Structures are given as C-alpha cells and as structure tokens.
C-alpha cells in the first residue's frame, strides 16, 4: 500500500505501520535492542521528517502525470521476474539449522551489543559520527537560501 496509494500522507502512514510490524519481527527474533531502535529511529524520526516535508510542500493528492502504462507494466513485470529469481534461488539453498548447543540467548540484548560495538567495531562507530556531522553540514548547506531569492515559495 505504500507504493500504490495516491495520497502521499497515506503512504507515509502505511510505511510507519510497516516499520512497526518489522519491529515486531525483531522482537520475535530476540533482537530487542534493534526493535526499540527501529521504532525510535525509523518510525519516530525519519517518518516524522517525511511528514514534515510533505506538509511543508503541501502535497495533498497525487496531481502529477503518472508514468505511462507501459512503464508501469514493465516495472511490475521486472519486479515479478526478480521475485521469481529470488524464490528459485532460495528454494535450493539449504540453511544450517539452529545450533541448539551453541545458542546464545543474549546476543540481542543491549549489553552484549554494546560490548561488541565498543570493542570490535569501534572504528566504524566513530566513523559513523563523522558521517553524521557531514550529513548535517550537507543538509544545512542545501537548505540555505541563495542571495536575492524571494522569501516565499
């Protein structure tokens, strides 16, 4: 429904619903930290940003020209072929069953993830902070008004 609804606000709401269900799957898979982070970051921050932009640009209904029917049909057919390829590949794949003796039930918890994040993955962690800084600078730079531009859109 995200991709098919005419009103972009409906798309955002369906996507928020999708994120909540994916967080539910994370809880099922014993990844509780990721479930909480998913809700906070994706459904809480990113989708709110999307809603801000949609309200800001005042898009109510999809009033633009749609793609030609041929393009839409080609898109759906290519997507369908890709799905068939995925299904065909994954039917042949054999998955290692869950190892009952080596199972560690603490891998989804915050403590274990935090320890691994700070011990083994420290360099990417710090680089992500630099990435955030550059993204923030970029976003502010892109949002600046040029000289001599009108004040209203």
């Amino acid at each position, binding site marked *: 429904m995200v991709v098919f609804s005419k009103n972009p606000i409906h798309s955002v709401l369906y996507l928020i619903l999708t994120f909540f269900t994916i967080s539910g799957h*994370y809880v099922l898979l*014993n990844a509780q930290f990721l479930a909480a982070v998913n809700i906070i970051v994706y459904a809480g921050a990113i989708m709110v940003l999307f809603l801000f932009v949609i309200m800001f640009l005042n898009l109510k209904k999809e009033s*633009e020209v749609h793609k030609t029917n041929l393009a839409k049909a080609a898109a759906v057919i290519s997507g369908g072929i890709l799905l068939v390829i995925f299904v065909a590949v994954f039917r042949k794949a054999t998955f290692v069953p869950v190892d*009952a003796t080596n199972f560690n039930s603490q891998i989804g918890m915050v403590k274990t993830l935090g320890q691994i994040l700070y011990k083994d993955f420290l360099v990417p962690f710090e680089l992500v902070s630099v990435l955030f800084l550059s993204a923030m600078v970029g976003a502010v730079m892109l949002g600046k008004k040029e000289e001599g531009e009108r004040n209203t859109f």
Partner: protein
Amino acid sequence: MKEVPEILQQIPQNYYVLLSSTLFIIGVIGVLTRRNALIIFMSVELMLNAVNLLLTTFSAYKSDPTGQVFVFFIMAVAAAEVAVGLAIIVMMYRYMRSIDVGILDRLKF
C-alpha cells in the same frame, strides 16, 4: 539460558528470507513505478528495512551478533541519507515547484 526459543525452532529460515525478499521487491516496484520523489525515497527506505530484517534473521539463527551490529550501522547511514535526501528534495521543489522526477531531464535548468 541455553534452550532455543520455540519461535526459532518452529519458523524455518526460509520464511523469513521470503518475507524479506517480498518486501524488497515491493520497494523495487515502488521505485520503478512512481514519479513522486518522496514516494521513491520511501520505497528505498523500505528496501533498506527488508535487508535489515534479513540480516537480523541470520544473526538470530546463528547466534552471531555481527549481523545486528551491521543493522545498527545501516540504520545510522539511512538516517543520515534521509536528512540529505530530503534537503535535496526541498531544494528541488524550491526551484522547480514540483517534485515530479520526470522533469529532471537536463543537467542545468
């Protein structure tokens, strides 16, 4: 706790892989079908989430936390990318008055 949760015993991994692939394909169809730049962006986020689900599945079934750490980094990168992407879309609206991606067909306007 050493016993495997019954969720992991009962749901085979195939189902989660299929679910993740389906979400990914829906995202791909969304990117290819729509002309609204915001909807395309949201479909890209849907694709990223499908991959997150797949990584978390394998991390849970193999008791390897590397997958979940990778998901954490993917979420961080996606958040930064959304910030910059939305700034670009706002700038596009400011110049073109429309966020139809079909009008972006030349290098300089």
